[in-house]
């Protein structure tokens, strides 16, 4: 390959550098956007987290660790742990559900595939607020679901199915599921049916072929999908607020309460910075583990 590439590169030197200029030009705008709209606000957030809080008032500029010290209280750690548990549980459930769905869609006829994908895409146009409040109505005692379950004898009496952890979980899974199916679909489409078939020909049972041949092939996409769900849901706010009890409050709700109700923006900023740091830490950990797991990649 290198033997072929060398003469090619030598020949294309001029157009290549012109390409690079064009590329740099094209990339400069997004880079500028990233700096202005992402890095500067992040810097301001970090700066705010060191500001001095004035009780009952707002805050004034400062450089102190008061807010970070407050993060060490068991209350915040408990809520942070809960947020991650919620996000990880949502990830496991939604990936477990999305994996077979994406697999089956990818094996359908083209027309059916398109119908499914368009259907999934169209659910993304619903606002989160609308979905969460619809779940509130659906799970309420007067909602059709409860009445149906009572009529079928599955529920003993009419009572609402929220607020609780399960309601939060179900709604979060509903919210992320279309993203994850669409995310897994390309990987599933590329899966070559001949490979598990070959494994079976070589004497492996279908289950063994699936576990030792198919699963390792899609391990990467599944893991990425799971991480995507964690990133999506770790900062969830509206779903636990509306469908959960205060015991199911997440860091997102604490941040909102601190920022919007008590006006303690330095504390809210510190909590947000901590959440970002935990998230980056988690991503780093996953990267380390996957590297250790597959040294070849």
């Amino acid at each position, binding site marked *: 390959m290198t033997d072929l590439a060398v003469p090619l590169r030598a020949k294309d030197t001029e157009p290549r550098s012109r390409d690079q200029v064009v590329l740099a030009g094209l990339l400069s705008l997004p880079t500028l956007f990233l700096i202005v709209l992402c890095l500067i606000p992040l810097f301001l957030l970090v700066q705010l987290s060191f500001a001095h*809080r*004035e*009780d*009952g*008032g*707002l805050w004034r500029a400062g450089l102190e660790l008061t807010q970070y010290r407050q993060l060490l209280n068991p*209350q915040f750690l408990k*809520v942070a742990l809960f947020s991650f548990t919620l996000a990880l549980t949502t990830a496991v459930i939604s990936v477990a559900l999305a994996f077979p769905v994406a697999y089956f869609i990818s094996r359908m006829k083209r027309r059916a595939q398109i119908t499914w994908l368009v259907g999934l895409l169209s659910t993304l146009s619903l606002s989160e*607020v609308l979905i969460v*409040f619809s779940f*509130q*109505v659906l799970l*309420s*005692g*007067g*909602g059709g679901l409860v009445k149906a379950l009572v009529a079928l004898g599955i529920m003993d009496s009419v009572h*609402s199915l929220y*607020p609780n952890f399960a309601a939060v979980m179900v709604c979060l899974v509903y919210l992320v599921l279309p993203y994850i199916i669409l995310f897994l679909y390309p990987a599933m489409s590329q899966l070559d049916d001949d490979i598990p078939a070959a494994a079976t020909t070589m004497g492996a049972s279908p289950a063994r072929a699936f576990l030792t041949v198919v699963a390792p092939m899609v391990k990467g996409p599944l893991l990425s999908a799971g991480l995507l769900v964690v990133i999506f849901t770790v900062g969830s706010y509206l779903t636990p*607020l*509306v469908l959960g*009890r*205060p*015991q199911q*409050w997440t860091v997102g709700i*604490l941040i*909102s*309460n*601190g*920022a*919007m*109700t*008590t*006006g*303690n923006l330095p*504390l809210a900023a510190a909590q947000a910075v901590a959440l970002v740091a935990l998230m980056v830490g988690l991503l780093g950990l996953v990267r380390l583990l996957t590297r250790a797991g597959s040294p070849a990649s």
Partner: protein
Amino acid sequence: MDADQDGRRPGLLNRRGLLMGAAGLSLAACSPKASGGGADTLKVSSYGGNFEEAMSKYVYPVFEKASGIKVESIPQPAGLQFLLQLIEANKAGIAPMDLCISTAVDINRGRNANLWRIRDPKPLTNLGNLPAQYVSTGPKGIDGVGALGWFLALVVNPDQIKTAPTSWTTLWDPAYRDAWGLAGAGTSPIFDIAAATYFGGGEILNTEAGILQVIAKLAELKPNTKLWWDSEGTMQTALENGEVKGGVYFADVAATLKASGTPLSIIFPKEGAVIDFGCWCQPMASTKVAQADAFINFMCTPEAQQLIARKVNAPPLIKRELMDLTDAEFNKVSSDIPPITINTKARAEHLDFMATNFTKMISS
């Protein structure tokens, strides 16, 4: 006070209200000297929705006719976002409005940021009509004058609770497990309700030890509380669906819900309903002092306050004997039972302590 459909309410988060307000303020900030207009116009913002509409339709025209000053009414979102943007605009010398409405907690926050203009009481000849508690006075002087009030009352669904309760103690009654929707933010008036019902008044909230005592009492509400609501829309849905049997809610919004068919009894308990209020405040960057004085002075007249009671459905703030409201008109928006007032001193000094410990209590 109403603003029910839009769900905007001071101190309570409402995403839509915040977004609209943010958009409004940014637009206002883009146009230099937004408070411009002629010398005889006054830009007045008040909580958006029915309230702002009723004020501009029924109350402002009377003032315009009497004073010759034209009022330009703009809707104002509730919440901290509004205040933060106003502070920034004011720092830049821009006044998006000449007068806005602000609650005690936000007046205090604005005061620390040097946001409010201090009023000379001399031109405010009608100030005496207001009880002193509705005039906001800081170390430098008067920076807010009572505009209107709103009540938080006890509401119950008469289909689910046959005998209407008469006391806040019902909230603590073990007979009502998982029944209530209560205001759940860390600064909630539920503190003042518990203090007035069990501790002889709001003074107990002046010390941290007292606050912890009140929180311990509030912890007894946990088994009875199904919903700790933050935005009034959440409580509205819960009341409409029969998800909660009752709780603490805005009396005026409850009245609107009742009128549209939700089964509700609105009760002013014997300990009093909680009254909260907003004040007219002028940002420093607005220079129309005389016009603002004329407006505020008019708003303190019995004529204006009667209009607020009759047309805006909000409780008047001036002394009842000054007005010619019939008993029916008065009782529709208020009550003779002395209200529970919100301890704003406690919020100014111990807000973070109250919020942190309250959140800890309800989420454990």
